[in-house]
Each structure stands twice: as C-alpha cells, then as structure tokens.
C-alpha cells in the first residue's frame, strides 16, 4: 500500500484517486481551489471520439476508444461507491454536414474507423430528419455513430468526489499553491509525505516546469458554452462549427469556443454570440430563444495535441496526468487505470509511449 498524493482535484485527479484508493492505496488529493471547478465542471460531457477524431488512427485514437469502451462499467462503479446518480446517456451521435463535398471526408473517416470496429452509417438528409426531426433542412447528410454517448459532467464530477470520500480518500480543498520537496508535497498548511506524487494540474501545469526540470507545453484554451431550455434532441449533434447536446434536465447545451485568452474565464459577447447564431442554423426552434445559462472553463491544450501521462524518467517520484484538452471527461477512466498501473508496476494494456510527459524540449 503506497501513500499517494494527487495535486489537482479535477476530473483527472479525482478519477486517479478513485482508482488508486480502490486498489488499496492511501490517497490524498490537494486542490488549489474547489474540486471540479475548472474544465471539468464546464464540460459538456461528450464521450464522442469517433466524431471528434477525423484523420488519424493513432495512439491517441486508441486511447480514446479504450476509454469509451470501459466507460459503461466505470460510471456504474462511480455511482455505486458514491450512491449518487447522474445522467449517462448512450444516445449515439450525428455528425451533420452542410455541403455534399463533406461526404468524401465522412467516407474517409468511416473507412479507417471501420478497421477499429467502429459502427457507423452515413444517413441521407431524409434519414437524418426521421432520426432527428428538429434539425435544419440545410443538413444534407450525417454520419451516425450509435456507440457514442454523453454524461452530465457536473453530476459525474460531484459523484466522483463523493465516491472518493466514501472510500476514504483524504480530499483537501482551497490549499492554494503547493510545492514539492522530494517525495513530499508542501502546502501552506502542511507537509504531506508520500511514496508517489501525481500531478494533475490541467491548464496550470506549466507552472511546474521549473520544479520538475522539463518543458510542459500545456496552454489554457478557454471554452465558452451556453445552454437553452429547448425541446430535446435524440442524439449528440456535431457540425464543423460546434455541437449541440440535450441533457435530461431539459437543457440543450451548445459548445464550444476555443479561445486564446490566457487564464480569463469570463464569457464574451463574441464567443457566445457566435454559438447562438450557429446553433440556430442547426436547430431552427432555437431561433426565438435566448440561452438561460452561459459559462466558460479553461482546457489544458498541449503542443502536439497529445496528453501528458506517465512517470518522469529523471524524477520518478512524480507521475503526470494532464493536457487532456477537450477530452478530459472521456479520458478520465483510462487515465486513472494507466496511472494506477504505473504505480502498481503492472504492464500497460495499451501503448502510452506517445504520451510520455518528458517528450518535449529540455529546459
């Protein structure tokens, strides 16, 4: 049994805590502010790698696919240990196109994803309308992926936190900045001696570069989202300009921008206005409605688009799990399992070499 201290109480940090504590370790989570307060709580909760990854059958795609596959059982476990229910909807998705010329790219994607046993069907405009009557008549075709799903992210994160507490994880919030001293994590209040430190600092990872002695090119990208009280959609709806997803609470969530705005988490007129205008072109019923809720979160984007997951070669007391960008919710179970396997020195089930945290330039 190892003493594990996790820095960062977002969906990644909490998932790692949940997995490690279940494997018999003694876990502490330290969070600068409130758990799930950043990208995690702001997420629309889509579990949709087949829609989002268009070009590359690479290791990142495999990582996403594996996480999607283990999600049904994982979310059951979170519900069981937390005794909190949250929406998990195996709705499938429609990737809608507005130009016939986009058909070729749907066919290309379908062809390579088929090799990974991804189920999908190209639907004609007529078939789209049968499945999703509320969509614009400008949609000319769609790729239907029945295996994709979505989750209510704030509910999921709250349940994860409760599950961790129920299992005996020591969660400390509002600690402010923390530092390292070998295997110990130092906060203003206390020194936490550990056998393993896990850094899951999301968009704030760059602040650890000096301390860890390696480049961590993780940038904050603001995602603005808004929500309408609108009639439901049966599927997640993707377009080249954004997505719409209906939640069980009666809202339709429209996302998301990708803004370069440093650490600013305010919504902007331009950012939300753009979503509003586009969403009406997707779902005409929104034409006369205004969003009742607008919010933003900072997503940790990386220099090469891959997350940073694994042990630092020169500082093996630290494991990184950050840089999940738009896929933190989806990748939470697989990241938790990879980190726990690293700690338990169990062979990994999938290739993680591309995600080495020290793959970037030396300082």
């Amino acid at each position: 049994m190892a003493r594990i201290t996790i820095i960062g109480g977002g969906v990644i940090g909490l998932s790692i805590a949940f997995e490690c504590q279940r494997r018999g370790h003694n876990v502490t989570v330290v969070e600068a502010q409130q758990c799930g307060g950043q990208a995690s709580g702001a997420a629309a909760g889509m579990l949709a790698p087949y829609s989002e990854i268009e070009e590359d059958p690479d290791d990142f795609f495999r990582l996403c696919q594996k996480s999607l596959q283990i999600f049904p059982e994982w979310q059951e476990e979170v519900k069981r240990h937390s005794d909190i229910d949250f929406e998990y909807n195996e709705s499938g998705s429609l990737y809608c196109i507005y130009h016939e010329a986009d058909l070729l790219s749907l066919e290309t994607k379908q062809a390579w994803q088929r090799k990974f046993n991804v189920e999908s069907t190209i639907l004609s405009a007529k078939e789209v309308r049968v499945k999703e009557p509320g969509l614009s008549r400008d949609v000319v075709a769609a790729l239907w992926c029945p295996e994709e799903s979505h989750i209510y992210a704030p509910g999921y994160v709250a349940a994860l936190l409760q599950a961790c507490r129920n299992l005996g994880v020591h969660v400390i919030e509002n600690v402010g900045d923390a530092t390292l001293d070998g295997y110990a994590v130092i906060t203003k209040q206390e020194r936490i001696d550990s056998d393993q430190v896990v850094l899951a600092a999301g968009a704030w990872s760059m602040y650890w570069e000096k301390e860890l002695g390696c480049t961590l090119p993780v940038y904050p990208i603001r995602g603005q989202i808004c929500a309408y009280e609108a009639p439901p959609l049966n599927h997640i709806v993707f377009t080249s300009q954004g997505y719409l997803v209906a939640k069980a609470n009666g809202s339709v969530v429209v996302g998301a921008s990708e803004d370069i705005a440093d650490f600013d988490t305010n919504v902007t007129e331009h950012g939300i206005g753009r979503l509003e205008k586009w969403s009406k072109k997707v779902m005409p019923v929104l034409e006369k409605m205004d969003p009742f809720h607008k919010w933003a979160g900072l997503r940790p984007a990386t220099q090469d688009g891959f997350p940073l997951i694994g042990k630092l070669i020169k500082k093996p007391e630290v494991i990184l799990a950050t840089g999940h960008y738009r896929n933190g919710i989806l990748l939470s179970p697989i990241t938790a399992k990879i980190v726990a396997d690293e700690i338990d020195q169990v062979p990994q089930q999938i290739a993680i070499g591309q995600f080495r945290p020290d793959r970037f330039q030396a300082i």
Partner: protein
Amino acid sequence: MTNKLTIAGKQLSSRLFLGTGRYPNPYVQNKAIEVSEAEVLTFAIRRVNLSAPDEDAILQHIEKPFQYLPNTSGATSAEEAIRIARLAKASGLSDWIKIEVSQDEKMLIPDPIETLKATEILANEGFIVLPYTSDDPALCYRLQEAGASAVMPGGSPIGTGLGILNPYNIERITEKLTVPVIVDAGLGSAADVTQAMELGADGVLLNTAIAKARNPVMMAEAVKHAIHAGRLSYSAGRISKKKYATASSPIQS
C-alpha cells in the same frame, strides 16, 4: 532572380503556402502561422461557415490579413468544384481558388480530367485558379494553358509525409511552366521542402508536416529556413554529379 514570388500580379514575400487544418489547438496554430511568415493560407470551403467567415471555428482565430486560398477539397467532379468556388467568392472570402477534385477517398489522388475542366471554366470566369494536380508534366502544362495562375503538383499523396516521390517529374514541370509551380502535398520535413525548392519550385504548400509535428511552431520555423536554403541553392547552381573523386586542393607539380 527576384526574391519575390508573383501570382496573378500579387507580390508575395514568402514562398510558403500554409494549410489551416489539423493543428492541435488555435494557440499553436497562430504561433506556427506567425513564425512561418506565410502570407497565403488555405482551407476547405466545405468546412467554413460561409454566412459569417469571421465567426468560423478556424478562421476567427486568424489575426492579420492574409491572402486566402480556399480549396474545393471534397469535390468529386468539376461541377461540384465550380459550385463550391462560386460560393466562396460570393461570400467575399477570396477570388483565389485551389481546385481540388478527387473521387478516391483512400488516396485522394486528384482527378486530372475534372481538374482541367474546372480550371478552364473558373479561369474564364475571372477566378485566380491554382489547381492541385498529380505530378504529370503534360497535365501541368495543359493546366497552365487552360488559364491556371499557378500550378500545384503533389510530391506524394496528401498527409503522407512521403516527400517527393518523383523528383524527375517535378523538375520537368518547373522547367517547362512559365507560371509559378507550387509543390503541394506529401512534404514531410524541412529536407523535403529544400528538395522541392532545389528542383526549381517557386513555392511549397504544407499543412500536416507542420500541424502534426511534435513542435509545430519549431517546424514552421525550420520550413521557413528550408525554403530559403533550397531557393538559394537552386539559384546558386549545384555542381554536377561525378563518379570519381576530385581533390579539392590541387596537387602541386
């Protein structure tokens, strides 16, 4: 030799055309574009929000004015390419158009007949036409005669990074054509870019090689230098290849 590339009367200081797809995020995209010093940006019209291009998911991040070269990728016939081109022009995006017509979802090899047809019609309509084509010297010549303002032969299939598979053909094309030749598609690294320029290309178009590099910003800088090095080397005139050694210090007799 002038240092400027001129296409349809427009002088360009950079010989790099850059695609805007596939970057890991807008921050890296903007930095890479900035460092590359490219002045021409290309993107798929089918992906763009034509009713409000400045609100488009990708284009909204582009900061300073660029020469846009929208492309017709996804078109499978001349008719479709022409329709897409007209949409782009009507939206005010640009009257430059990169013709891209393919019927092959696996190789994305450009269709020669449809590409030629679309080039002729759009050039006659007053578009500045830059067709993406296979590296066939006879076809490239025909595209020039059909009114192309520059011709863009591929080094290898899009996104493969296989570099220039037929340098002989590329060199024949750059020798024969009087309009600029931009080597488009398949270039994977700075070495490939230098080779294209040494073969006499007037410029190169890249996307994946930069966007999917581990460090896209650094690769953008490498490519910028590679274009400069290749162009200088081409202009300087390389030595001929010989079978046997020649001492670089003459032997005194």
